[in-house]
């Protein structure tokens, strides 16, 4: 059996069988179709067009005649006929072209004393969405090269909770491990080594930093226990030889994880703490890592407490009608006033296909300031209509940002009221988490001396706009510090400085973990934070209601 896949004029034929879905077969052809729901058939991100052939779709057999096309979900479709032809729309392809990854990092002062002074080190930040790797020359400590890729686990599921759920079914843990190592890390190693001429075998030490669930899967240990109370990880530390994990570096290279603080506050945060020197700062400093899981640590004169909030992937564009990751063809900034003359910038290509997280924050902030969006996240529909920006999508009011002729998809790019509601829930989770964490210390946002923003997303958001929508505390932008990829910096320190390993073990014992749902204040703070900027107006003195 064979199938021909077509994408933008290119054709690739691969062997097919009726056991695999079209989504899986397309990967054999080298094309990664986006499956936002994890291939469960509940979203439409993996749409393809079927050409001539016989198929089973959602358990039902269908026949497509030559010259006919039928649109289906590739994750729910299997091929039954001897030959078949499938057309993949550009929009269904998971693109990494021009993806904007924060590989910028500041490595703090340290003693250069690698454990393996001869050879190369590999520092890796394993994010839920992206993986960044740095190749480090251990003879002199120089960072030779950096590369990044999407964590290919996103083919299976977007967020950690869905990935934990997947691991409760047999075979999925191994599949996810293979996706992050064979399909993500190894290609990165090849890119790094091919580009620099360094032999892969010369990499003798590898440190990986990521959330606790990512680390479990990376080392082949089931994360299922993190999904249920009391959210206990199997282990907070992991170590193995490269060959045991099938990583394409020196077979005996030592591979270690930056140790985790708890099930939901992982080694990436341990890394952030060391990279930002959080634990040695005076006064009240808070570290916020805005990602799919918003983790935060408050440090009051050396005493740390930490929590994680389920912000969800909305800031990465997931779940929004025209949301997209921060890659080529994504709108990344927006500015406008009541004339609704949208000034947008697009990454790479001039014709956008959607908007990424930083843009939707701009959109809501500008909309709120000019009266287009009210404090509950609803449009002034009359204003939209008077500026010819109104559209109705599935019964919802939507604002047209880009006309069909200017977009890469041939359709208008819009923001619906539902999209705004999704962002409001995500920002409420982060802000109320922070407020609760501070309340547990007997403090309020007013008492904050310094905010450290870590993670790729923070690097690209407009701070004033993030404050305006109530995502971050209104304490003046001067108190903010953006450290970039602290997780990668932390992994780098682990190969550069042999004393870091011990320091990490000390750090993870320090923070007290706050379980937000068990506090008396979280539910109320969350509800207050759903409004723009917040129902507790005292928290946002500089944001004037229009």
């Amino acid at each position, binding site marked *: 059996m064979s199938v021909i896949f077509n994408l933008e004029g290119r054709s690739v034929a691969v062997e097919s069988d009726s056991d695999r879905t079209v989504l899986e077969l397309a990967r054999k052809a080298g094309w990664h179709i986006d499956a936002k729901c994890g291939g469960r058939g509940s979203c439409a991100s993996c749409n393809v067009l079927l050409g001539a052939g016989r198929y089973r779709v959602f358990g039902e057999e269908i026949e497509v005649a030559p010259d006919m096309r039928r649109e289906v979900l590739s994750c729910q479709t299997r091929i039954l006929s001897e030959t078949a032809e499938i057309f993949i729309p550009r929009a269904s392809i998971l693109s990494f072209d021009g993806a904007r990854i924060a590989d910028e990092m500041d490595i703090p002062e340290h003693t250069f004393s690698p454990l393996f002074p001869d050879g190369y080190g590999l520092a890796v930040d394993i994010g839920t969405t992206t993986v960044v790797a740095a190749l480090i020359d251990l003879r002199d400590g120089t960072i030779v090269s950096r590369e990044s890729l999407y964590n290919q686990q996103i083919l299976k599921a977007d967020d950690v909770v869905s990935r934990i*759920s997947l691991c409760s079914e047999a075979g999925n843990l191994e599949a996810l491990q293979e996706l992050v190592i064979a399909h993500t890390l190894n290609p990165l190693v090849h890119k790094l080594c091919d580009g620099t001429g360094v032999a892969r075998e010369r990499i003798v030490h590898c440190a990986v930093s990521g959330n606790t669930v990512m680390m479990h899967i990376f080392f082949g240990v089931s994360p299922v226990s993190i999904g249920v*109370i009391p*959210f206990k990880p199997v282990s907070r530390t992991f170590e193995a030889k490269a060959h045991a994990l099938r990583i394409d570096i020196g077979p005996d290279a030592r591979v270690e994880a930056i140790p985790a603080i708890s099930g939901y506050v992982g080694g990436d945060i341990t890394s952030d703490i060391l990279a930002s020197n959080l634990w040695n700062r005076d006064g009240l400093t808070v570290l916020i890592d805005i990602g799919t899981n918003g983790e935060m640590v408050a440090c009051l004169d050396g005493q740390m407490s930490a929590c994680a909030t389920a912000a969800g992937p909305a800031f990465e564009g997931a779940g929004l009608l025209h949301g997209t990751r921060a890659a080529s063809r994504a709108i990344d900034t927006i500015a406008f006033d009541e004339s609704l003359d949208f000034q947008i910038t697009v990454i790479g290509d001039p014709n956008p296909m959607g908007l990424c997280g930083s843009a939707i924050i701009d959109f809501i902030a500008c909309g709120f300031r000019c009266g287009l969006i009210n404090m509950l*996240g609803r449009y002034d529909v009359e204003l939209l209509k008077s500026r010819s920006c109104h559209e109705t999508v599935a019964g919802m009011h939507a604002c047209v940002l880009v006309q069909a002729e200017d977009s890469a998809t041939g359709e208008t790019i819009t923001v619906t*009221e539902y999209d705004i509601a999704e962002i409001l829930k995500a920002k409420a989770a982060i802000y109320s988490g922070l407020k609760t964490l501070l309340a547990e210390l007997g403090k309020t946002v007013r008492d904050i001396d310094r905010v450290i923003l870590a993670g790729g997303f923070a690097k690209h958001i407009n701070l004033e706009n993030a404050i305006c929508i109530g995502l971050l505390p209104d304490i003046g932008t001067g108190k903010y510090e953006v450290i970039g990829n602290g997780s990668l910096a932390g992994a780098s320190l682990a190969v550069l400085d042999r004393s870091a390993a011990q320091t990490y073990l000390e750090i993870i014992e320090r923070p007290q973990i706050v379980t937000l749902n068990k506090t008396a204040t979280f539910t*109320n703070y969350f*509800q207050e934070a*759903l*409004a723009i900027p917040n129902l507790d107006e005292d928290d946002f003195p500089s944001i004037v209601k229009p």
Partner: protein
Amino acid sequence: MAKNEALFEAVLKGKRKDVAEIVQQEVDKGTNVAEILMGSMVPAMAEIGDRFSRNEAYVPEMLIAARAMQAGLNILDPLLTQAGHKPLAKVAIGTVKGDLHDIGKNLVGMMLKGAGFEVMDLGVDCDIEKYKEAVENGAQCVLLSALLTTTMPYMKEVVSGLAGCGAKILIGGAPVTQQYADEIGADGYSNDANTAVKATKVVLGLAA
């Protein structure tokens, strides 16, 4: 039943201070407390629930309205008890064992309160005993919530544990489906907070 338009609007728009003020004024005027609740506040929550079902209102707005409703209930609750006002029915809601997620569960609880039910909130991480206790304390309907596929199977144990107790059982949460409800023998399922209210009324024979 007379409707106080200002109160209706204040609940709908989620204006907590206004709701508390108007309710207090009405109470001071000597208006029948059941009428304040059933004539203005319950219809406002029903309205926002229907808007939600029609895609005309979203979760943040619904939670903010529910919060405003609660401000009014804080004043009314003791007075309603004094006046001998009977709730529609007594129901209990809780997130199942192993699961700590409660935002969705809280929203359903608030919408039920907003519809005139007496709601026992059992919190999160509830084992069978906790649900049983609620039934012994008069819950006519028990609502189970789970957000994870790893915690969802516990619903089946609760359903068998409560067999023959007389209370109806409804289930909900992201991974839950009608098919799953049928499979484990629950009396009903709902996929959002507004239909949860409707489903509760249906299983208790209260639907209009």
